[in-house]
């Protein structure tokens, strides 16, 4: 078979070989539990603490504000549930947006079932929230604003610093799901006045099953996973040392290459977008044209359906997705596409291609060429398309 063209880096990424090399010794060699007292475990412990420092530095945070978790979903759940519980006395109202990841939305629903109230902000046709609506939604009893840094489907980047400012002015905590943004665009928790931030290892060429939650010092939320005294008593469970090492190694590489990756991917992204728009009729770009993740290409192709497109792409050796990986299996159209106003049958024909800096122009050319054929073929079968 020809070399695979992997364009689903928003679903998950390859662990970089150099990241894996760093992780390796911590499986079979330095396997000690960082909580143990003997020397042998100090290597693990030191490595965990160095990882914490590196990640903190990247965000302009303090090491003791970084808490390792089992992934982005856990971080999101923790931020929401624990803030709700800890600050229930202050109020029970949370503001979020309609296009959050399910790790936020379903946790909000869970909190609603426990008596909390949630306001889901609208987004415009580009996926941007309206800061005025945000301000108007703030109430006496609002305790948390949770708005994602960048959307996992359509790539739109929210005005995080502005949201942070509004939250700060109203003395409300601001959490951002940065799972798609961390390591992909610059984030500074001070400048952007972020109080909590979720991130995940496997979206930045680190390992799966590891993530972190940044918690600003003045946010005194309780634990979500209760038990041992790891992570200063806030997150129980034996440290996943190789995972933490891999997360930090990947973050470091991402940090070092941030600018060049952004430049390179943006160019590739815009090249793909312009070829698709010029060569495939009835193709509608989703998300904001410039306020978007450098690696995100998302289109709705009218008159056809996503899965068929994906299977045919797959047969051509191309990995893409039709929305978020973790909702595949669901038949509902993407809540994100509905929120930006796409009608049901248009939302159906969605395709997301997400780059890494390893992708090339040649790959993009091949993909667009294939795509043209595939879409033509599927449209010829479609009862909705009359040529």
């Amino acid at each position, binding site marked *: 078979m020809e070399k695979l063209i992997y364009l689903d880096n928003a679903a998950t990424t390859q662990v970089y070989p150099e990241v894996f090399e760093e992780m390796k010794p911590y499986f079979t060699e330095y396997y000690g539990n960082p909580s143990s007292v003997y020397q042998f475990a100090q290597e693990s412990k030191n490595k965990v603490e160095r990882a914490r420092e590196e990640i903190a530095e990247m965000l302009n945070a303090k090491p003791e504000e970084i808490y390792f978790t089992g992934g982005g979903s856990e971080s999101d759940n923790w931020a929401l549930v624990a803030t709700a519980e800890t600050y229930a006395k202050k109020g029970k109202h949370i503001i979020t947006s309609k296009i959050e990841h399910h790790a936020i939305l379903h946790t909000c629903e869970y909190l609603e079932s426990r008596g909390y109230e949630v306001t889901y902000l609208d987004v415009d046709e580009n996926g941007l929230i309206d800061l005025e609506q945000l301000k108007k939604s703030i109430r006496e009893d609002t305790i948390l604003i949770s708005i994602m840094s960048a959307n996992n489907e359509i790539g739109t980047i929210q005005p995080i610093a502005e949201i942070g400012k509004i939250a700060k002015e109203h003395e409300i905590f601001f959490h951002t799901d940065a799972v798609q943004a961390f390591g992909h665009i610059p984030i500074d928790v001070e400048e952007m006045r972020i109080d909590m931030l979720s991130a995940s290892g496997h979206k930045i060429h680190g390992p799966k099953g590891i993530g972190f939650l940044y918690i600003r010092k003045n946010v005194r939320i309780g634990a979500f996973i209760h038990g041992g005294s790891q992570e200063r008593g806030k997150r129980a469970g034996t440290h996943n040392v190789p995972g933490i090492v891999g997360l930090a190694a990947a973050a470091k590489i991402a940090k070092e290459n941030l600018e060049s990756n952004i430049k390179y991917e943006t160019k590739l992204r815009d090249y793909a977008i312009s070829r698709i728009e010029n060569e495939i009729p009835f193709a509608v770009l989703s998300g904001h044209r410039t306020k978007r993740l450098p690696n995100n290409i998302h289109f709705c192709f*009218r*008159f*056809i*359906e*996503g*899965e*068929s497109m994906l*299977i045919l792409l797959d*047969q051509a050796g191309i990995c893409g997705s039709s929305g978020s990986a973790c909702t595949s*299996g669901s*038949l509902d*159209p993407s809540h994100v596409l509905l929120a930006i106003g796409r009608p*049901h*049958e248009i939302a*159906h024909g969605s395709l997301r291609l997400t780059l890494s800096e390893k992708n090339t122009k040649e790959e993009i050319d091949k993909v667009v060429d294939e795509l043209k054929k595939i879409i033509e073929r599927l449209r*010829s*079968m*479609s*009862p*909705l*398309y*009359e040529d």
Partner: protein
Amino acid sequence: MYSEKVMDHFNHPRNVGEIEDPSGVGTVGNAKCGDIMRMYLDIDDNGIIQEAKFKTFGCGAAIATSSMATELVKGKTVQEALEVTNKAVMEALDGLPPVKVHCSLLAEEAIHAALWDYAKKNGIVIEGLKEPVSDIEERVDAE
């Protein structure tokens, strides 16, 4: 996730297209996923289905079941065609994943809708055929 037979019918769908002046045509939509299937039948004076064609806006399973359904009804009498249920289509395709069972219902309903149209046009009653439940308006966008 799909069987080889499904992939075969998806990759090489049989009977894609339209029939001009069909004996019956039916379009059904699947409320569950929003997918749409249109089935055309050419039925001769003896009530035998001479030709069947389809157009489908839907997932891989929808395309494969459309294809298989048209194959199965061809050459059958109207009465026999009624027995081409979604189960029969799935069996002929060596099964479908659980989340895709509903797609095969689309095929069954499309056959029924086309037969209903045929019956109506000819003023006859096909025993056992009920009015299709989910014949939906064509949603072809004018644009």
